[in-house]
């Protein structure tokens, strides 16, 4: 294994779970999340030599992941929320425990947010530092804090509404 491949393995192991969570939060479906994660890391591999260390490696990878998720609509028509929700429920049909049901409900609730809100809240839930989230999304930290406050409130409201149905 050459030096670049070793570096890439390390980068993959350190970042794959978070990138997967971001893609899962964006698409609300495990298969699409795996595809988008794979596409993201293929782009990372192809562009590894272009990483200039002006930002953290994780920030750089997140940006590629966010942009890959955003361009996802070029390939697949955005699914209607209902269709997406059916798929999420399908993923948990094998004797779902109460916890699994709650997790399915959480993904269903995230899917009802707007695209940028899904991306931001997924990173917040994964405890990515605010400065990094702001850099990835190209907005100021002050603006981000306001948005996060609003999104947290919105997600909680949607989740509780879905739970009561």
């Amino acid at each position: 294994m050459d030096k670049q491949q070793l570096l890439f393995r390390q980068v993959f192991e350190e970042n794959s779970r978070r990138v997967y969570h971001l893609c899962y939060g964006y698409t609300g479906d495990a298969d699409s999340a795996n595809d988008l994660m794979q596409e993201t890391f293929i782009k990372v591999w192809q562009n590894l030599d272009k990483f200039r260390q002006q930002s953290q490696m994780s920030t750089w990878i997140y940006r590629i992941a966010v942009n890959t998720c955003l361009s996802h609509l070029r390939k697949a028509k955005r699914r209607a929320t209902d269709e997406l929700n059916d798929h999420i429920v399908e993923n948990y049909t094998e004797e779902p425990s109460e916890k699994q049901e709650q997790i399915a409900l959480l993904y269903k609730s995230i899917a009802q947010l707007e695209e940028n809100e899904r991306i931001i809240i997924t990173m917040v839930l994964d405890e990515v530092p605010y400065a990094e989230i702001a850099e990835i999304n190209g907005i100021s930290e002050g603006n981000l804090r306001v948005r996060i406050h609003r999104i947290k409130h919105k997600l909680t409201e949607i989740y509780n509404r879905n739970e009561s149905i």
Partner: protein
Amino acid sequence: MKAFEEIQQLWNNRQDEPKVDFDELMKCAKGSRKALAAKFMWQCVAVGVAVLLLVAIVAWVDFVTWTAYAGILIIVACLVYYLVNQWKDFRSMERSEKLFAAPQQYITYLKAFQQRRNRFNTYNYAVYEVCVALALALYAVEFFYRLPTLVFAAFVCFVVVWFLICHFVFMKRYIRHENARIEAMIADLQRIARQFEE
């Protein structure tokens, strides 16, 4: 009723893991590059063969008019133009530096890319159609001197009917379909772009 902190707890406790492992990813990364290279290699080969065939025709067939040569030259230019544009757009999409841009700028890039593709598939196709029609018309001058009148008339009728079908049925349908798709995509991109504004 749950508070956000409980939702956070729920998120931390879930166990969904990616199903892609490193070795599989490397295989795909290398494979996708090979597949892309193979795709363009075959496109280049196909255009190369077509160009060689046309050159061979020019070399072996003794045309009596200069218009036949001009017609073939126009067809070759169209083929090369198409190939170069396909290559440029694919490279721009796959290996774009824009991938590292902030989402807002990336979406602007995607919108511009979609519009460029739309122009290429519609306006440029119309120009391509005119070029091919001109090339065939020039070529027909040669046929006029070589073919019996009835065969020549049949050839002209066939070409005219084929062009009318392409223009009024296939091209119109393609443009309608392509425009609807691009408009939907641009509407989506505009909606998302607004979400990333400060």
